């Protein structure tokens, strides 16, 4: 009897011909139905491209929505918890979370204020039903444009030099979380100074049919700067170093969660700075105000763990004897650039204050046999990796 293999990666991004040519490992996975590589040659080498030279990541499968219309500003402002009316003008990008009426996070993402009354919202998950519901009674048009635009992340210390080589004049003035439109071969190329690595980096957005010329020009411009295509393995390592959240890892989208108590509020994800109670109304405001008064249940923690055994899926305890279970690790990795054993996790309040010592139950395997250790860990406040070059404007040339 034969079992037909189900191809979960039936869609190909506009860059696929180039990705396929570079691929040596054949380890593809499905990213919302698109073929996406774990790695092309070697995950470690690709990771070091992010930190030491320049890495190119195909983020075309990222879910993209275009929001236009007279009420677009009001719409976006009500949708997310942060102030979009006064603080995110045209030409700016905002990292944001959006909540349901109970103040529980549906997803996080980036919102690009492309022009007056025109936004692009990018997220990991699909949200059309929610975005449409949020548009009831407003003069806005919501359109999914995931397949219409190809997108590349160019990340790493050399990324600015490469864009300079590409001939994007004025790129030197682009600040962190800024965006700018350029002309590329007669097409509009949007460049934003954003990324998922916590390093100096940019994201490039272009019409899907101009994807390959952009790729080729970029690699030509970067050939002396160590430009390298990377897969999700390297990206994942760097996003944990940057302390960024991933949907379905650090939190579950509230509208897809069945059990009560399994969702997280922005406060429970360490995103207090994104919640602006000066706004008279936004989705989740009433519930979040109550949570602010009455206290949260969970706390998001960044852990600096002793030793070098990755603490994946580990329980977190208040004490070394593992009597009091206070939470669990959601993401963990060895950080080559920091030379640290790091993790992100979720613990019950009031545990997990910055500076507190907790214990992480790490299981590891050596030549088939399993061992267990209670590793001491410190709760830290800052991202593990946040170099000054990330926000230096103009960035340094290499």
């Amino acid at each position, binding site marked *: 009897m034969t079992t037909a293999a189900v191809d979960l990666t039936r869609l190909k991004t506009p860059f696929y011909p180039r990705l396929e040519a570079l691929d040596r490992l054949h380890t593809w996975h499905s990213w919302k139905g698109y073929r996406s590589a774990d790695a092309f040659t070697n995950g470690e080498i690709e990771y070091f491209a992010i930190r030491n030279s320049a890495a190119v990541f195909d983020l075309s499968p990222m879910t993209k929505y275009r929001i236009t219309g007279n009420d677009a500003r*009001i719409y976006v402002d009500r*949708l997310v918890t942060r102030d979009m009316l006064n603080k995110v003008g045209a030409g700016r990008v905002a990292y944001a979370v959006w909540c349901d009426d109970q103040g529980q996070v549906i997803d996080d993402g980036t919102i690009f204020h492309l022009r007056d009354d025109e936004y692009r919202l990018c997220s990991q998950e699909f949200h059309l039903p929610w975005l449409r*519901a949020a548009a009831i009674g407003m003069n806005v048009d919501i359109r999914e444009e995931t397949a219409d635009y190809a997108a590349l992340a160019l990340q790493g210390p050399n990324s600015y030099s490469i864009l300079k080589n590409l001939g994007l004049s004025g790129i030197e003035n682009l600040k962190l979380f800024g965006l700018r439109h350029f002309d590329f071969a007669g097409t509009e190329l949007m460049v934003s100074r954003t990324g998922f690595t916590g390093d100096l980096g940019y994201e490039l957005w272009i019409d899907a049919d101009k994807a390959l010329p952009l790729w080729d020009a970029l690699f030509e411009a970067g050939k002396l700067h160590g430009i390298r295509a990377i897969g999700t393995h390297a990206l994942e390592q760097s996003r944990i170093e940057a302390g960024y959240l991933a949907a379905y890892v650090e939190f579950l989208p509230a509208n897809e969660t069945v059990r009560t108590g399994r969702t997280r509020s922005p406060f429970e994800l360490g995103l207090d700075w994104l919640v602006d109670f000066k706004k008279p109304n936004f989705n989740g405001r*009433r519930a979040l105000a109550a949570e602010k008064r009455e206290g949260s249940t969970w706390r998001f923690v960044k852990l600096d763990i002793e030793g070098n055994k990755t603490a994946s899926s580990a329980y977190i305890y208040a004490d070394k004897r593992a009597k009091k279970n206070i939470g669990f690790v959601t993401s963990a990795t060895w950080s080559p650039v920091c030379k640290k054993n790091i993790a992100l996790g979720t613990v019950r309040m009031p545990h997990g204050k910055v500076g507190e010592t907790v214990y992480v139950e790490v299981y590891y395997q050596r030549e088939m046999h399993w061992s267990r250790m209670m590793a001491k860990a410190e709760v830290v406040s800052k991202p593990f990796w946040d170099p000054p070059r990330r926000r230096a404007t103009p960035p340094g040339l290499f």
Partner: protein
Amino acid sequence: MSDRYDAIIVGAGHNGMICGALLAKAGKQVLILEAAMQVGGAAVTREFAAGYSVSACAHLLYQLQPQVLKDLNLNLDYAADDIAAIALSTTGDHLRIRGNHTEGLSEDDAVELRSFHARMTRYANLLNKYLNKAPPRLGVRNRRDLTTLAQLGFDVRKLGRKDMREFLRLIGMNIFDELEERFDNPLLKGALAVDAVMGTHLGPRSPTTILTYLYRLAGNQGRVAQMAGGMSTLSESLAKVARDNGATIRTNMAVKRVVVENGRATGVETEKGEVFSSRVVVSNADPKSTIMDLVNPRHVETGFTRRVHNIRMRGNAAKLHLALDGLPTIKGLDKKSFADRMIIAPDINYVERAFNPAKYGATSPHPVMEVTFPSLRDATLAPTGKHVLSAIVQYAPYNLKEGWDDAARDAFKQTAIDTITTYAPDLPERINDSELLTPADIESEFRITGGHWHHGELTLDQFMFVRPVAGAAQYEMPLEGLFLCGAGSHPGGGLNGAAGRNAAIAILRREKAA
């Protein structure tokens, strides 16, 4: 800019005036704004032909809560307070039903009816207890909510093991199955089914039509009354009580929007541009127009907006008014019986068949009707010796496929007249003048979204804890300072008054807590 009121009530429907009167009675400064020239909303008498008047929308009173009248020290002048139903038969063998008492039934059916009526009355009494209080919030630790919830559980349990099971079995069920199981007489089944589906977008085979039947019964034990002078008498009495208590009522003042400042309802602006400010705004309008038109969704949250947007409220009942030279003749019916309400639903499948086209946006070729001759008990409604016919005609869907225009209205009016003529052959020659109000007309004349009397379908998914929507069933809307007091909130529609009273209690309690 005028003085600041304690409460502004948008709409002088019966619930709005009851709420306003109770708030004023508690010493609050109350302003009630009504868009129409006269108070009453859907409870009004108006002249539809020279010399002929009629209760223009609601024509019978079957649910007005005694508790409301008591709180307001109100004594109403009824033309009749226990009207019987007559299930019309083409052969003249009509059935007369008043409560559990009927004339013309077989012994078996009569016994079954008594047992059916007794059981339904027990359930209706249980329901009645909860009409007059705010439904408990679920999942909160508030003591009042928990007590009410525990009380509800206890009351259901108190029915006894057998009755409780039966209650839980029936509550979500359709009335068709229950009636078919119990009764033989087609007229009886038809007439009981009509009571369950009157004013709804439901047929007897639709789920939860037992609930709608119970709801009707719960109001006042199924007693049906007629106001002397038509419904305006009720509305004028309520207006008088409200004014006597110190409330100000201003008609011809359509509210354009609720003013929201800094996340709070702070007053209203009228169509004429006048702004009135107040500590709370209480809307007697239906929940959809309150949130979508008066407030604007941008001031409330998305989940709530979506729920309100999805409230089912497609009206399906038309209203027929005929000005008659004299009473028509109906075979086997004496003149006295014209004072009762006549039901045209010869059997229960007739009712379901009448509903069928409505599902697809067409009117019933053979509609179900509730026909009354109010002038028989109330001479003020027609010139001496002449009569008025007032009938509810179902089904006439709000979303008529080809849209409601004059032609569609005239066609359905003719269908309705023809249907009565089957029983009263000389009716056409008695008609002086006529009028049919479609759900679209009811929407525009009485300002009810979808022309739905109940301000939202009365089904289990829009009932009690989830009326108008989940998380907003306690009259207080998720916008500070905004309350609902109309039929769209618990317990619902019909001329009931409980929503207005419950809302007033909720507002006063909220003020006390603040």
